[in-house]
């Protein structure tokens, strides 16, 4: 009997298909556990649509990303975007800068989507998941609005600042700025994805 059992064990451990199957299950479970942990921490919002009312007259929005374009603010800085009676103000933990309403020459609002797990850390996590499990995580994204504000400095130099806001907030900001007297031109909306050539 003992001999038979030993033979069975040997047979099951040497069965290659079972090993591969076991590895696949392990990879799937690993990816699942990471997704659950990330969702539970609430840092990324998986596939979340904006729950805030779109036309809310908010004067200040936290965790806005300033992609580029503000003096003394680093690229991709996170901070709070506030609407003051004089214009926009963006404040990080260390610095604060603003755009006067009178200096604004145009405002654009666009839609984009952002990965829920992104950045250097997120990329490492995705790459660390075996059997391409990171691609599963890449499927989760959320929509954001991009607010582009064009303005002039005191010498007439053209500047452009790009902010990434939660969905529905950028339009509200734009409307409030226009009500304050910011200039806006008529825009051509671009929604094409195919390569364009003139």
């Amino acid at each position, binding site marked *: 009997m003992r001999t038979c059992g030993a033979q069975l064990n040997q047979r099951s451990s040497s069965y290659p298909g079972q090993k591969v199957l076991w590895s696949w299950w392990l990879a799937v479970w690993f990816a699942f556990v990471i997704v659950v942990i990330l969702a539970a921490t609430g840092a990324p919002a998986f596939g979340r649509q904006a729950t805030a009312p779109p036309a809310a007259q908010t004067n200040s929005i936290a965790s806005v990303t300033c992609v580029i374009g503000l003096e003394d603010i680093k690229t991709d800085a996170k901070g709070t975007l506030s609407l003051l009676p004089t214009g926009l103000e963006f404040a990080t933990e260390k610095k604060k800068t603003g755009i006067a309403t009178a200096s604004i020459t145009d405002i654009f609002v666009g839609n984009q*989507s952002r990965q829920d797990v*992104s950045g250097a850390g997120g990329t490492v996590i995705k790459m660390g998941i075996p059997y391409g499990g990171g691609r599963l995580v890449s*499927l989760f994204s959320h929509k954001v609005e991009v607010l582009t504000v064009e303005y002039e400095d005191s010498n007439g*130099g053209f500047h452009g600042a790009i902010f990434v806001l939660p969905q529905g907030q950028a339009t509200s900001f734009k409307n409030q700025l226009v009500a304050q007297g910011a200039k806006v031109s008529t825009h051509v909306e*671009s929604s094409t*994805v195919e390569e364009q050539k*003139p």
Partner: protein
Amino acid sequence: MKCVTRTTFSLIFAIAASSAVFLVASSLLAQPGPREDAAQKLSASAIQVERTDPPEGLVIPEDFRVSTYENVILQLEKTKKFQHVYRSGDRTAANVSDLVILRLIPQAFKEGSQKKREVSTVSGSTRIKVKVQFTTRDGRVLLEKDLEGKVRFYGENLRATYDFSKKVAAVVNDSF
């Protein structure tokens, strides 16, 4: 036996030494002479970056245009080739005698998808192709190049503009 070892050693040493001499000589011969383009390097104390103005029929989202413009200014400042990098419309640039004007003329644009890129790794790339023109104040073209910014795998779509601006900086480093 000792004699054989000594002979073998001296033979190997001779082969190695002659190979080394041959390699050094051939590499010295292969060195290019003084670069011709080094003499043709442009010089200017200041540069003014004009706004990206796409030709009619080519629609580029404003965030891409602004990001291209701002990234180019940031990268030009990093090169330290110019005493001042002026923005489009800056009135103080009027006083600079040897001002070079950088015009960015978009040629083609394809907006991809970050999700597609990361899931498939073969599709969803974002590309922006721009003609870069360095001109004098009176419009004489000093240098013209077609450069492409792209993001293929990881990163947001706007990263294509960063990639493009790095290439502009490389051109400036080579030409100024």
